[in-house]
């Protein structure tokens, strides 16, 4: 039932609105709304019940294991939320003077310093509001760099075929042509393809390392040399930073610009699809182009650095300072971890992934890159299973929901057929991984004994499999009375 179906004309929550205004307004009649908007007219209790019930129809980290590859679904510590929601932080206006926000700005400044250190970059801007915006900002800086040198012949961005879809979409938004390069048998970027693609027309290479295939690009130093020698710059997509946090710094691999998804590595909530936050870090060459605002400290006072001090800055990308409440949560998380905790994240995420990969392999699942170490994630391919039984990766994913697990990432990366990209974050225990393996074994058996059970899964949720095709053909995007 929709909230609108609970609605009754004239029902009103008087405790949630000021007393009616008797004063007349000077707003001209033609600018005044004639008919009230169709918003629900429900009691406070109706609304509370309705949305509490809706919440119960969701899977979440607080209730289920999410082995979602490239999404880093780790526990979101409750302290990060409650401390970021202290009343003084919540009530502070973004345009309030800097001296009324020294506590908040201190957190932002220290977060910048922490992120600089763990990534090995020279400067960090906290402004990007999501991974894709971090990418847009990063590639825009690459473009500004080339243009500032009068180098206008660079029209292409090189992107591996395993990359997230946001990479090519971003390059196009920055006015670049995308050159896709292939992956070799071992899951690394095909070095011959890279050599053939690199040239005086190359503006840069966008790379995720470890890649979305769950392996560390072994040739990264050579790749970096090739691109730099051709005059291009290296972009690091930080989607998989969790795998190397505190172990390897992207700056040391030769990257010129990086974005970090705080909603992954730094445990800020996914919130059912945002808000994200994706600070960008830059190496020396891109320092003059960094987006504003950035926080600095002068004689013990924190303040904003604006366009005036960074005249070549590529500008502003949010009305204020990005998703500052998300940044506060990431700051709190990073202080909880501390220097001695950062590398443990990468270590236990990697331990979990390699253990789960081994156990699934023992259980009879085909691993896409069996000769490689898993980074923090790995791929199972069900190509063989599909040929034998007709069961697809989607069927297995949906059946996992019945077993109380969120599905892994399916059909991404696109180059591995019938793939499940599996990432067990460091906050998951061995018992959870073992019970996941047990369920996967049961599902594998069912594929042969009871395939219909998989094809019609899930069965335990309030709804069974939903019709995507109908949704797109018979568009119903708003409720009508």
């Amino acid at each position, binding site marked *: 039932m929709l909230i609108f179906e609970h609605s009754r004309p004239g029902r009103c929550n008087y405790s949630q609105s000021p007393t009616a205004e008797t004063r007349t*307004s000077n707003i001209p009649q033609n600018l005044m709304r004639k008919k009230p908007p169709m918003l629900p007219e429900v009691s406070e209790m109706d*609304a509370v019940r309705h949305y509490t019930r809706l*919440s119960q129809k969701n899977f979440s980290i607080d209730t289920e294991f999410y082995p979602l590859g490239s999404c880093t679904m780790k526990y979101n510590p409750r302290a990060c939320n409650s401390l970021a929601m202290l009343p003084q932080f919540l009530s502070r206006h973004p345009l309030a*003077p800097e001296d009324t926000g020294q506590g908040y700005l201190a957190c932002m400044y220290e977060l910048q310093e922490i992120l600089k250190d763990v990534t090995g970059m020279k400067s960090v801007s906290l402004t990007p509001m999501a991974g894709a915006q971090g990418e847009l900002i990063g590639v825009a800086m690459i473009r500004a760099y080339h243009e500032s040198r009068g180098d206008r012949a660079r029209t292409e961005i090189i992107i591996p075929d395993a990359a997230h879809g946001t990479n090519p979409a971003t390059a196009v938004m920055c006015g670049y042509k995308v050159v896709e390069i292939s992956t070799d048998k071992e899951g690394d970027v095909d070095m011959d393809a890279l050599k053939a693609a690199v040239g005086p027309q190359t503006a840069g290479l966008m790379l995720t390392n470890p890649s979305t295939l769950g392996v*560390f690009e072994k040739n990264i130093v050579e790749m970096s040399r090739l691109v730099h020698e051709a005059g291009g710059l290296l972009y690091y997509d930080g989607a998989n930073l969790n795998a190397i946090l505190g172990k390897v710094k992207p700056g040391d691999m030769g990257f010129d610009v990086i974005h970090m998804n705080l909603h992954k590595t730094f445990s800020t909530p996914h919130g059912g699809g945002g808000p994200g936050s994706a600070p960008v870090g830059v190496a020396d060459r891109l320092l003059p182009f960094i987006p504003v605002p950035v926080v600095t400290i002068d004689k013990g006072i924190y303040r904003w650095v604006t366009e005036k001090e960074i005249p070549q800055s590529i500008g502003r990308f949010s009305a204020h300072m990005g998703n500052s409440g998300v940044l506060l949560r990431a700051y709190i998380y*990073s202080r909880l971890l501390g220097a*001695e905790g950062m590398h443990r994240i990468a270590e236990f995420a990697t331990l979990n992934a390699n253990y789960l990969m081994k156990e699934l392999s023992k259980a009879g699942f085909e691993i896409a890159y069996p000769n490689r170490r898993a980074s923090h994630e790995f791929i199972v391919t069900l190509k063989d299973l599909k040929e034998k039984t007709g069961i697809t990766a989607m069927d297995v994913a*949906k059946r996992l929901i019945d077993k109380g697990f969120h599905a892994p990432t399916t059909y991404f990366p696109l180059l591995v057929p019938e793939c499940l990209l599996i990432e067990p974050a460091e906050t998951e225990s061995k018992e959870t991984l073992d019970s996941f393996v047990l369920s996967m074994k049961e599902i594998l058996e069912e594929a042969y004994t009871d395939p219909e059970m998989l094809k019609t899964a899930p069965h335990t949720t309030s709804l069974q499999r939903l019709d*995507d095709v109908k949704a797109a053909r018979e568009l119903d995007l708003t409720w009508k009375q």
Partner: protein
Amino acid sequence: MPYIPHTKEDVTAMLASIGANSIEDLFDEIPPDLKNGKLKEVPSGLNEMEISRLMSERAETDGHYLSFIGAGAYEHHIPAAVWQITTRGEFYSSYTPYQAEASQGTLQLLYEYQTMMASLTGMDVSNASMYDGASALAEAVLMAVRSHKSSRRVLMPSTIHPVYRKVVSAIVKNQNIEIIEIPYCTECGHILLESLAPFVGQDIAALVIPQPNFFGVLEQVDALTDWAHTNNALAIGVVNPLALAMLTPPGEWGSKGADIAVGEGQPLGIPLSSGGPYFGFMACKQRLVRQIPGRIIGRTTDLNGKPGFVLTLQAREQHIRRSKATSNICTNQGLMVTAATIYMALVGPEGLRRIAEKSHANTMILLEQLEAIKGVKRTFSGSMFYEAAITLPMPVENVLQKLKVQKILGGLDLKEYYPELGQTILVCATETKIPADLVKFTECLNHVLSE
């Protein structure tokens, strides 16, 4: 102190299964000279009690002020239920609803949100939200250019939030789009139809129309929308969603209505929080639905014919279309929209109208009180919603400093954004202000000015 549950026995058993001697062995594919040493700038870890103390101290440092700043972010009462429900783990820690059967809560909520926003803006459809108001406007500009086909020029009034204009140029810069600024009438504080005259007969993709504008002044939206359509351009409305409880929605502007409506969703139950996270909204006419960026939820049925919800029209999006997508945008501001939807359900149409009317009335009362001070006058003659530009008889900076000592944030100095408005502040009084607050502000300002 990371949140890691492994016991020593677990680690031993897991390494044995893998066939590795140590955790470090698992990193043997990484070239050894790439591995970093100790982190120098990261302090050592704190426990929850220690970080709580640190954060409470920092929050105390920031304190509380009686604030009259608006300028795109507004202080409104937020019902207690909004964030208590929004931060339930099932909303807070859930993933993007790609697995529809495991995400019906978020999906249905977003469908309800789309319905509410479409109705509030008077448009046919709404997406599931954008990052913020500024980036939503940039995406609207890109969308207008995509659907217009022949023109890449967009008319942008200087009464649009100055930072929004910066964000738009930063985002569309590399796509060969020309943003042409339209000056405002310095007497009335809004755009005049005459200033569009030079563009009659030219190929223009869109005209952006704010309501209310950055100065809080109301634009002649009907005439501007009709001007756009007569000149074969799209009309993009930039609106305050709360104000729409009182004001004509963009879908009803002029004879045909605006084509796209965007804005900042913060007034709908989102705390100020130093600027974010907020959410941008975007709604449009049905014929533009395939050009809209971002996530969209559709109603469909399951195998048994029961109604349910899924992400739809995904063929527009980057994870499917890659380099040919309508935008690179991937995420929306799910949790913020969760709060906004609960907020709108709790206040309802009557509550929202009262909040808008009270805010408008408070600002008008404040304006009258301030105008009674010698040398203080309203800057613009145009009618206002819940913000007002006020010209002071002396430089603003010093005045605001002195008010701050009294724990009052007396508005925004407009000099930085509009150099021609040398001694002007932009003030705002929402429904959260009681008569005593308005009197206190007036008396303090009077005192400061007569010193």
